[in-house]
């Protein structure tokens, strides 16, 4: 991350600076997106292992794999559902606060 703040030239033109700014922003965006994706993968792994692999055998069985792939779909669906209801709740509360201030 600290690489974004360094430069090979000490003098910089405005366009150089704009490009560097974009690089910093894109770097931050992609790191945040990566962290979120990793979190989702870890959580899915944990939850679906708990649900589908009740008694670990020498390999994953066909029915366990079916369970895992359905579980993955359902967990992602849940994430999207929760994300939608949570942001709906947040914007409702924001509106309410603005109304109370008037």
């Amino acid at each position, binding site marked *: 991350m600290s690489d974004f703040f360094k430069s090979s030239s000490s003098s910089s033109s405005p366009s150089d*600076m704009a490009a560097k700014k974009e690089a910093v922003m894109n770097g931050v965006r992609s790191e945040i997106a990566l962290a979120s994706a990793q979190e989702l993968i870890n959580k899915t792994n944990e939850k679906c292992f708990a649900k589908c692999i009740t008694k670990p055998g020498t390999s994953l069985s066909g029915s366990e794999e079916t*369970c895992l792939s359905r579980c993955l779909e359902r967990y992602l669906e849940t994430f999207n*559902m*929760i*994300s939608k*209801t949570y942001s709906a709740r947040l914007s409702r509360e924001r509106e309410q606060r603005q109304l109370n201030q008037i």
Partner: protein
Amino acid sequence: MDNFKFDEATQKELTTFLEREQAQARINSTVHNLTSMCWDKCVTGTPGSRFARGEESCLLNCVDRFMDTSLFIIKTIEGQRSQQS
């Protein structure tokens, strides 16, 4: 060592950008936690190709009831404190 400096306007813009991204990241992390919590509470059966009806409505209500719970707890504690003083 060479050091690159952003001008003041750009620094300000980046600060605003970072604050906004951080706020969004906090919301996102709450969504991860809520998803985990509501999954444990609502999805009780073996995962199928779709949610059971009860599971779906449980998930849809889960966030709002959690937030209501949080407000209720705060209100109750505040009420107790004002009675004591």
